[in-house]
Structure formats: structure tokens, C-alpha cells
């Protein structure tokens, strides 16, 4: 049994069958990549995992519990954190405040009317956030407006925010999309380091084969809304079905 079990999931948008009969099992403490050509249903599948979409059929179990019908914030509190394709951070807030918010969410849950003590008096959260910023090597930027940072720094901050919640499953949606090669390599190194230092399961959706083959231990190839194959990176590289899906039948 994997930590994430997707069974027979289907999702239809009007006339488009975006997902049909998707089965996926992500084993604990592995890096699992989901790849596929444009329109294969990768993002739809991801949205079904985090509560943004509800599949028409099938089941999604996280750690033995169904996530279906739960709001995104509830699923997050169960232990799934999501990193977006374009970094989603609190642009109007400072870097330190950005990091404190997930720490508050971890400590106080989905809602807490903590309206009279000052933020600076919350030492435990403050320390935790500072510690995480140091780990992400951005402690010197703590008083900067998050929106003013570079794309790479925003991505790093977002990953740090997700990690500060100590999630059991980290979902990454094309984390290096639109990045320069150097930034991409930095992100790969960061993710490798994260994986080394803690017990965490990472599921990654990616276009860039370089990223996928540097990180993944298992790869699922999705095409036209169904998983084509699931295997180790070595076997996927030479798989005829994968070539067919990516390059077209005649190739």
C-alpha cells in the first residue's frame, strides 16, 4: 500500500474525457514523477488530489483516508502540501511573514481567532519560521516584500513554506517551468537535499525530462487521460509506448 492510492479515477469536462480509469500508487518516501504530453491530464489529476476538483468516479486515498469531498485546506491539514506552477506566495507580505503563516497553520489549525497578542510575541512560530528561512538560505531577505523577489527566490520561498508544515506528501506542479537552466539545476539540487534530509514523499509533475530523470525513482506516463506505463526511470527511457506517446505513432 502506498501513501497515496488513486483508484479508477475518471473526470469529464463536457465532451472531453480528461481522465479515465487512472490508477496510481505512490510509495512512501519515494520521489514519483508523473509525465506526459500536453493535454494528457496531469494537471487535472493533480487538482483531483488536492481538492480543487472532485472526480466523477473512483477513489483517492491518502494514508488510508479518502480525500474526496474535502476542501483544499482540510486536505492540506491531512499532510499534503502543494507547490504551484507559478509560485503562489503572499506578495504583499514580507518574506518572514510568508514563512510564519504556514507555521501558524501548523500550530493553530485552519482557524484561530488570535486577535490580541502581537505577532512578535509568538516566539515559537517566529523561531520556526526563521529556522526554515535559514535552511532555505534566505534569512537575509526576511524583511523584503515577497513580490519584489526574483522568480527563483519565490519558488524557493514557496517550497520552504510547504516544508515548514512538515507535510508527508509534497506535490510539485512543474516546479521548473519557465526557469533558466541554472535556476532549474538549483531547484533540482534543493529538492534532492530536501529528500535526503527528511522522510518525505514527493510527487512531481514535470515536462522537463532532465528534471524527471535526475530526481524520480518511479515514473508514471500519462497519455490521453490514462496511465500508459509505470516503471523505473531506466526502463521508461527506452520504452516504445512512451516514445510513441511523445513523438507520435509514425515515429
Amino acid at each position, binding site marked *: 500500500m502506498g501513501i497515496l492510492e488513486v483508484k479508477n479515477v475518471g473526470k469529464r469536462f463536457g465532451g472531453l474525457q480528461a481522465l479515465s480509469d487512472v490508477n496510481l500508487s505512490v510509495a512512501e518516501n519515494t520521489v514519483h514523477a508523473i509525465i506526459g504530453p500536453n493535454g494528457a491530464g496531469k494537471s487535472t489529476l493533480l487538482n483531483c488530489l488536492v481538492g480543487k476538483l472532485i472526480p466523477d468516479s473512483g477513489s483517492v486515498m491518502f494514508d488510508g483516508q479518502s480525500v474526496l469531498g474535502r476542501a483544499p485546506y482540510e486536505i492540506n491539514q491531512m499532510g499534503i502540501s502543494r507547490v504551484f506552477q507559478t509560485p*503562489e506566495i503572499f506578495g*504583499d*507580505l514580507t518574506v518572514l511573514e510568508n514563512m510564519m503563516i*504556514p507555521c*501558524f497553520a501548523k500550530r493553530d489549525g*485552519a482557524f484561530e481567532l488570535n486577535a*490580541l497578542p502581537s505577532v*512578535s*510575541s509568538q516566539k515559537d*512560530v517566529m523561531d520556526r519560521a526563521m529556522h526554515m528561512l535559514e535552511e532555505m538560505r534566505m534569512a537575509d531577505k526576511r524583511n523584503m516584500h515577497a513580490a519584489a523577489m526574483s522568480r527563483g527566490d519565490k519558488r524557493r520561498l514557496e517550497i520552504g513554506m510547504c516544508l515548514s508544515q512538515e507535510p508527508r506528501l509534497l506535490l510539485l506542479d512543474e516546479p521548473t517551468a519557465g526557469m533558466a537552466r541554472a535556476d532549474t539545476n538549483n531547484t533540482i539540487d534543493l529538492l534532492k537535499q530536501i529528500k535526503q534530509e527528511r522522510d518525505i514523499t514527493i510527487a512531481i509533475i514535470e515536462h522537463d525530462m532532465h528534471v524527471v530523470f535526475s530526481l524520480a525513482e518511479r515514473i508514471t506516463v500519462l497519455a490521453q487521460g490514462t496511465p500508459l506505463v509505470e516503471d523505473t526511470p531506466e526502463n521508461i527511457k527506452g520504452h516504445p509506448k512512451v516514445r510513441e506517446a511523445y513523438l507520435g505513432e509514425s515515429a
Partner: protein
Amino acid sequence: MLGLDKKDTSLLIIVAILTLLAPFILNPFPTGSAMAQFNAGYPDLMQRFVIFGIFAIGFNILFGLTGYLSFGHAAFLGVGSYSAVWMFKLLSYNVIPAIALSVVVAALFSLLIGYVSLRRSGIYFSILTLAFAQMSFALAYSVLSNPKFNLTNGETGLQVYADDPQIFHRDSLPDMPHLFGLSMRSTYKLDIGAWSFDFNAGYYLCAVIMMVMFYLAIRIFRSPFGMMLRAVKSNQQRMNYTGLNPRPYTLAAFVISGMYAGLAGGLMAAMDPLAGAERMQWTASGEVVLMTILGGAGTLIGPVLGAGFIKYFENIFSKINDNILHQWFSFLPDGIEDFMVFIVHPFIGKGWHLTLGILFMLVVIFLPGGLVEGGQRLGKWIRNRGKGATDAKTKQEPAE
């Protein structure tokens, strides 16, 4: 001090000094002089400054922090006023139970309206609140005022009559709102030379309450809750995916700001025991939006400045008439004098809204951060100019 950092403490102290000394500060011109019409230090207007200050401080907790623009906050103000007058009618003219009930009723009412309206955001939220406020206005103006069930007394407005129960009223107590016997209208007049200053009990009650509410607002702004509200404004998507539910946060902010509005409404009735439906009309809701934006949404002191600014100009400009204009321009040759009066005439008296509109436009276009931004720019300019003048000399402390 009081759990605030140094900067906030000094801000609070400045506000306290300004409100407590307002009778002096607002009456800089000797009585009877030509400039006396610019004096604003009379009880009625001073009360309105601080009451609308409270209203705007509360509105800013919702709009300034979460970015949810409510167009129906006057409904809570009106509900507060009606509750207070009912307390006067049933219990006594003591203002404490009246103000307490106005806050409680406004809280319940805003919980109901907020719960429904906050299902949508952006323009749809604004329209929903506007619709609720107009429904409340209709209820107060006509529906809840019929011979069988008269809660609001319709067009006439709710007031206290001689045959009302007033079960705790004693003959020794004043026959108007009072604080344990101290009438809200009792005023001590201090004459110094040509000047005259009014110290009014009602004003000081409102001023003290405003300081407490301002202090609470600072605490909310600086708290984890305040940070979450700013997070709602900044990125709800990220909030949702960070395990936080934005809905109860926005609802709590909505109810808190509704309670501020109810308190302001209760104080209004405590100063003048009358509640009319017009207090709930959409223009009243729009006014608090203007105050907050004019002063600087999202800043601590902005809404108070905005409220003072609008109420001052409303009273002063609307009092100026053509005779006064002729006096001002009397030094000019006759034809030009008439011409100047003709030009300025539309902007005074009943046309003061025109002046306010122009001022509002200028502020929004040139100072998007409101009067607070204006103050900051002025401070910076003075600082830089001081630096230029003293250059290599000692550092000059800017006076902000």
C-alpha cells in the same frame, strides 16, 4: 507599553493628546472674528468627528486588511442606533446599557449578513452587502413600522416619548441621555480672552471610547489574526493550500467591523436620542468608504483622519453662503467680486459635495495611499530639504 511597540505607542499617545485637547485645537480663532466660521470646536461636530472615526476604524479592519469592500456598513450603524433608543425607551436614559445592546445587536446582524455575503468576493460581495443594506433601510423605513408592530417608527424616526416605560428612570436623573446622572449635553464653557472653548461630557465619553477602540484596532492589526487577514487580501489560493480556511477569518473581520459600526450608531443615539432610517441609506455606507480611502485604507490613523476631514468640510463648507463670499472678495473691484462669487458659489453651501468630490478625486489620483501618504511624502520632503540645507552638518531629526 500596553503590549504595543514603541512606534504604535507614540501613535496612540498622539491620538490621545489630539482627542483630549480637541476643544482647544479645533477652536483656533477668536469668537466673533471673521475666521470664527472655520472653528470646529463645538460639541455637536466634535462628537461627530470621533463617532465617525470609530465607524471608519472598524470599517478599515474589514476593508483595509482583507480588501473586502462592504457597501452596507451603514445598516449596522442604523441597527445600533435603533437598539440604543429602544434601551432608552424601555430601561432608562443611561447610555451604558444602550451602547452595550447596540454592539450586541450589530454583531448578530453582521453575523447574519456576513455569513451570506461572504460566499462571494469582489464586486459580488459589495453588491450583496449593498442589497442587504437597502433591504434593511426598507425594513426600517416602512415595513417594520405599522400600527400593529412598530419597531422603527418609520419616517418620523424612533424617539423617546413621555409615556414610554423607562422602568429605571428616576426624577432625579436628567431627562436626556446621561452616564449615571452626568448629562451628555452638559458643557463647561471656558472663556480665555476673546476665545471660548467648550468641554462637553458627551464628546469626552465618545473620545475615550474612540481611544479604546483605536487601541484595540492596533492590537488586531499587529496580531496573528491581523496577519491572516492581510494574507486573505494577498492570496486566498495560497491560504487555502496552506491549511487555512479564509471564510471564518473574513467573517470574524466582518463581524468585528460591524460591531464597531454598531458602537458608532449607539453613540450617535446616546448624543441625540433619535434614530432615523436615513442613517442606513446607501449614501451613508458610501461615506465611510470615502473616509477610509481618503485617509488611507489599511493604515491605522488614516480612517480617523478621513472621517475628520470629511465631517469638517461637510460642516464648514456647507455653512458658507454668498454673503460670506462677498465679504471675502470685497477687496476686489465690484464686477470681479461678483464674478468670483459666481465662480465659487457652486462649491459652497448645498454644493459642498462638489468640493468634496474634487478633493476626493485629487487625493485618489495624486495620493493613492490617502492623506497618510500625503503626510509621509511631506515628512520625507522636509527631511530631504533639511539634509540639503545642513548637508555636512549634524543630522537633523525630522518632525513628523
